[in-house]
């Protein structure tokens, strides 16, 4: 499940009022989340949660659920 915090960071970065994020939601399904904007979202997530991803970890992400799991795994370390 996507946490409220992560949802808000993504919505704010994409300038969206609301979006129904599911674990399986892919970036391409979200308005404005294209390959160029992707970097801004990743930086915003890193900054908000005070964590740092490895490049390979980001490249492996398939959907928003994977991003949530990655954030959780970093916070639990």
């Amino acid at each position, binding site marked *: 499940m996507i946490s409220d915090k992560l949802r808000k960071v993504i919505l704010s970065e994409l300038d969206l009022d609301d979006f129904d994020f599911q674990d399986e939601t892919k970036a391409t399904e979200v308005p404005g989340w*294209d*390959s*160029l904007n*992707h*970097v*801004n979202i*990743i*930086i915003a997530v890193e900054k908000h949660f005070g964590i740092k991803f490895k*490049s*390979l970890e*980001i*490249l*492996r992400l398939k959907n928003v659920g994977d991003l949530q799991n990655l954030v959780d795994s970093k916070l639990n370390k």
Partner: protein
Amino acid sequence: MFDNFQLSRITDLLQFNPDSPLIFSTGLFIFLFFGFLLIYNLLTKYKNARLYFLIFFSVYFYYKSAGYLASILILSAVINFYFGKLISTSTKPGIRRLFLIVSIIANLGILSYFKYTNFIIEIINGIQSAQITPLDIFLPIGISFYTFKSMSYIFDVYMEMMEPTKSFRDFCVFVFFFPNILAGPIDRASEFIPQINKEPFLTKEDLGKALFLIILGLIKKIVIADYISLNFVDRVFDFPLRYTGFENLVAIYGYTLQIYCDFSGYSDMAIGIALLMGFKLMDNFNSPFKAVSIADFWRRWHISLSSWLLDYLFKPLQMKFRNLRQFSNVIGLFVTFLLCGLWHGAGWNFIFWGALHGIFMSFSLMIKKPKEFVQKKLHIHNTVGLKFLQRFITFNLVAFSFLIFRLRSFDTIYEVIDQIFSFFHGEILMQFLEKMPLISGLLILGYLFHFMPDKVEIYIKKFITSLPLVGKAILLALVIWIVAQFKSADMQPFIYFQF
């Protein structure tokens, strides 16, 4: 009864000939493919025999176009299969990374030797006024395509996006698969390999779609691309100064249509042929001239290459330099498109073509926010008029970039542009239409069909699917007859074969 003379002619026909690759639109291919398909279908229940037969036919298909250099293809398959294995079985990240780097060096080393050695020698000779003699290197046809196809497997295994295949047989089917070996689509192992062990099953819709794509591909390649190239585009670009600016401009639009019909026609046939064998290949084109921006164009043109570059080059670069924020995109875009240009060929024009697209994309990224602000202020955001304007600008930028792609000499490019701006003579339009009715008609029809709504294509597909088998056969025979009327005496290789 065959006598010795006839037998030797048949043997000659079946042997390697660099000037006569086994192109889908040749009579020889159609004859061999029907024989192949018959045996392939008879072997439906015998998976092992069917797959080895497919490997054998694919290697023969490649040998017919590349001769002894088919050994490079086999070497590439062996290297990538075992590196995939080594990467997946290593537990230490450093060792996995090392195997990845070595496999990239091996793949790009082979590709570069064949493709870029003489270009580098030319550059060295230019800088140092040296006299290094160029090497006698024969470029193995399709090497850029199958190298990238195999590399996608290595990357996906490294990034743990897929489990490596345990079967060398299956890996060979993936790498050697004849429909996409010479000019793509550059299919992904993760999508293709799981299809290998499924029993081929062709639905009525699949058969209709396959036939539609083969017919469409034949018409695009022979009727449009080859005809306008031989009878108009090549003539203008050989001597631009002999023609008015108007004709030069029409030649630019003509070449833009030609390269699209040539390449997407090949992809259509490849996808259709693969479908007849029960394999679904990835889409490679999606009405690229309907694009409203250069970024949109690259989501629609040569999709298998652009998505490959996006996943394995742009995204890693973008993430590596993400602290630079927007500049990570600019760096990623520029490097990606420069290498995209170089992938197409060892020539400065290809490098400039790639750089130009890198500049288009970076510029568009820089002005994205102010542009959206202005559009919202003027209340033209998402309007039909704005979309039309965006399409018009994008199409012309793309067409101009293809001029650089087509002409290797910058002097000739200058001549074409100079004629357009200083000797246009638009009044010859009516004369042009009267003197070249077939060329004008093909250009107009080609573009009209391209800009038709998607539902027209869906309707035609449904119509072909609904035809009884005899109707489908008659339709195919009719198209082959029409195509034969347009076919020139000299075989025109596909433009993308040279890459």
